[in-house]
């Protein structure tokens, strides 16, 4: 057994920590529209971070679970809101299913010049990947899409959207879901863009008779579900690693604060009541780290084993996020609730990871169903 990261990954991690320390401007985030920085994005691309999310055969130099873990843990540690998770989702789907001509986009994604988003969720679909009701109809020379996509992270900034739609079957069926490449500015796409509580931006997308050429179809018609689930598993690993990084920073800020803040004539960290709670937090964050390692190490397992790890990790990380966020704010007192102080950003961003790819309660149920069927 060896729980050390490889030398390459350690270098990636160290380099990323230095880079993000310089380019992540939390104060600007809190003041502004909660969007992300194009400057930071360019630097991420320059450093090769986007390439680390793709395998060598897809033009990258990584793409394994532990590459995702290292990269996203650092993104979280810095509180960086740049839309890297969308690369794992949309970029991952293009890599998995794309024809050669479609895969050409990956080069531009890795170079940082093409922004992507995965338009999959719909009002009422919540976290169920098969609940697609957007319709795609075959026409003489291509496709016609109609429907609505909700809370599409990076939707408005994306040059290229990967959109899911149903070409057959009923809402909830895993069969019959297809994916389409939709370039920015395509007629019939109506976007409403807005800030997200945890940083970054989202969009509501209304599609009315969006006309697409035949080669917009990504992969085989009606057979996209398996690839969506796989991309989702990878994204869950990335998101959980990001949550871990966010928690590491919240934990560090809280430990520092316990040493600095004086009440009743001494640093509050001298009070046993707070020491025990801090100790519990430290234990739980280590548990979360192990959970992320578990998922990263099982991403290439068979579907069922992999999904058991997806739900186990997301459940545990979600539960820990709640504890760390609430305890960090509480132990800070009022200052922990202010936008001015960094903790607030980490608290919001960490909490919002619960609203993507399924929350702790959702995955508790899913885990027990998956285990029960064993």
């Amino acid at each position, binding site marked *: 057994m060896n729980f050390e990261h490889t030398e390459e990954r350690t270098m990636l991690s160290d380099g990323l920590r230095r880079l993000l320390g310089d380019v992540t401007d939390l104060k600007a985030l*809190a003041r502004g529209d*909660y969007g992300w920085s194009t400057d930071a994005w360019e630097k991420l691309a320059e450093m090769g971070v986007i390439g680390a999310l793709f395998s060598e055969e897809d033009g990258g130099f990584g793409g394994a679970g532990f590459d995702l873990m290292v990269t996203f843990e650092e993104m979280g540690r810095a509180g960086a809101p740049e839309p890297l998770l969308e690369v794992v989702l949309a970029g991952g789907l293009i890599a998995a299913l794309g024809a050669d001509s479609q895969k050409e986009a990956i080069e531009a994604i890795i170079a940082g010049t093409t922004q992507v988003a995965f338009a999959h*969720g719909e*009002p*009422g679909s*919540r*976290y*169920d990947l098969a*609940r697609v009701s957007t319709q795609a109809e075959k026409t003489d020379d291509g496709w016609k899409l109609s429907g609505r996509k*909700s*809370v599409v992270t990076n939707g408005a900034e994306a040059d290229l959207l990967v959109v899911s739609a149903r070409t057959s079957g009923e*809402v*909830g069926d895993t069969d019959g879901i297809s994916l389409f490449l939709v370039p920015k500015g395509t007629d019939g796409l109506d976007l*409403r863009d*807005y*800030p*997200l*509580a*945890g940083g970054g931006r*989202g969009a*509501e997308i209304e599609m009315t008779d969006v006309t697409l050429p035949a080669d917009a179809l990504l992969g085989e018609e009606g057979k996209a579900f398996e690839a969506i689930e796989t991309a989702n598993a990878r994204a869950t690993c990335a998101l959980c690693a990001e949550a871990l990084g966010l928690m590491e920073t919240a934990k560090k800020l809280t430990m520092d604060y316990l040493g600095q803040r*004086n*009440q*009743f004539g001494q640093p509050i960290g001298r009070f046993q*009541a*707070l020491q025990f709670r801090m100790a519990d937090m430290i234990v739980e964050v280590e548990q979360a780290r192990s959970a992320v390692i578990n998922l990263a190490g099982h991403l290439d397992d068979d579907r069922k084993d992999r999904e058991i790890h997806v739900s186990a990790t997301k459940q545990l990380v979600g539960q820990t996020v*709640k504890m760390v966020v*609430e305890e960090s*704010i*509480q132990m800070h*007192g*009022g200052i*922990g*609730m*202010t*936008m*001015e102080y960094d903790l*607030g950003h980490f*608290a*919001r961003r960490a*909490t*919002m990871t*619960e*609203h*993507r790819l399924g*929350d702790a*309660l*959702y995955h*508790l*149920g899913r885990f027990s169903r998956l285990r029960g069927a064993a």
Partner: protein
Amino acid sequence: MDLSYSDDHEAFRTELRTFLDERLPKTLADKVRLGKRLIKEDHEQWHAILQEKNWHAGHWPKEHGGAGWDAVQRHIFEEETTKAHAPRIVPFGVAMLGPVLMAFGNDEQKAYWMPRILSGEDWWCQGYSEPGAGSDLASLKCEAKREGDHYIVNGQKTWTTLAQYADHIFCLVRTSKEGKRQEGISFLLIDMNDPGVEVKPIVLIDGEAEVNEVWFTDVKVPVENLVGEENKGWTIAKYLLTHERTNIAGVGFASEALSNLRRIAGLEMQDGKPLIEDALFAAEIAKLEIALMAMATTNLRVVSAAAEGQAPGVESSMLKIKGTQIRQEINNLTRAACGPYAMPFVSEALEPGSNIDTVGPDYAMPSTAEYFNNRKLSIYGGSNEVQRQIIAKTMLEV
């Protein structure tokens, strides 16, 4: 034991419901229900409507212009107004300063300030906390130096709720550095329009600036504005903190938030079914409901003892802890119930008078703001850690 309300109390509840039905403006109730932010005029409007019945300060004795409610009536009032989505009564004048003046003020102070609280002429805020004096309030530094017939005040207060609306602030100030820290503190009333008073907003993680820093630079305050004796303000502070904490359990808020949660969980769909039919989610709601049922009774036990004239002691600490835990958990589950639509955050859409649509269902976006805003419940008014310390100190004989 008898768990039912008396006929008189039931009659009061009926009267109150009719009043709320007829007099609470729908626009105001909708704002509260949808989690929109209220502005000063909203509070003033509701204050004026309540005052037509003498109900703004219902719990004040009749001789001071109140309606002379007992603790049970006051509880019924809080329960019913919350259920009807009335704005909460801003407590600083009516629930905090009023009782202090009744107990410690001189005749001139009572005659001058109390009618102005009832009429709403003065908007008060509370100047207790300082950057270095939160839970350890006795270490406060904001200084008032006597010079002739004035105090000269210098220093800073923080976490001052709604100071942006206030024209007056009641402050704990340091008038002596001799002896025990608690013995050099005085209770002073300050006009915020006086030169040298500055208010700076603090934006919180829910995106709103409901709290402020208040700075004093050589502010001249007439000595008539000292309440009680000089250097004896600690007694007043303690009186306020332990005896006049009202609605600390927040049963009404919790019940209302819980029915909102049930409504949302009935509308949100998971796997093609209403979320509330999900066994795990339903179990989480059930746990909270069970806890709330017990807490409501704990609260009534305290209310009823108070109506009999007993001063609540350690019970108010218990209610603070349990009540805030339950409310925060309801907020947490409500945010969770909203699913991905808890993420959009168009802060302006929550602002008064905004025509900007929220994103997703109307209940979703305020749920995140409320979750973060209500992290304060376990921090302010003596953090839950301080309450635990009080319970332990009172109950453990070590």
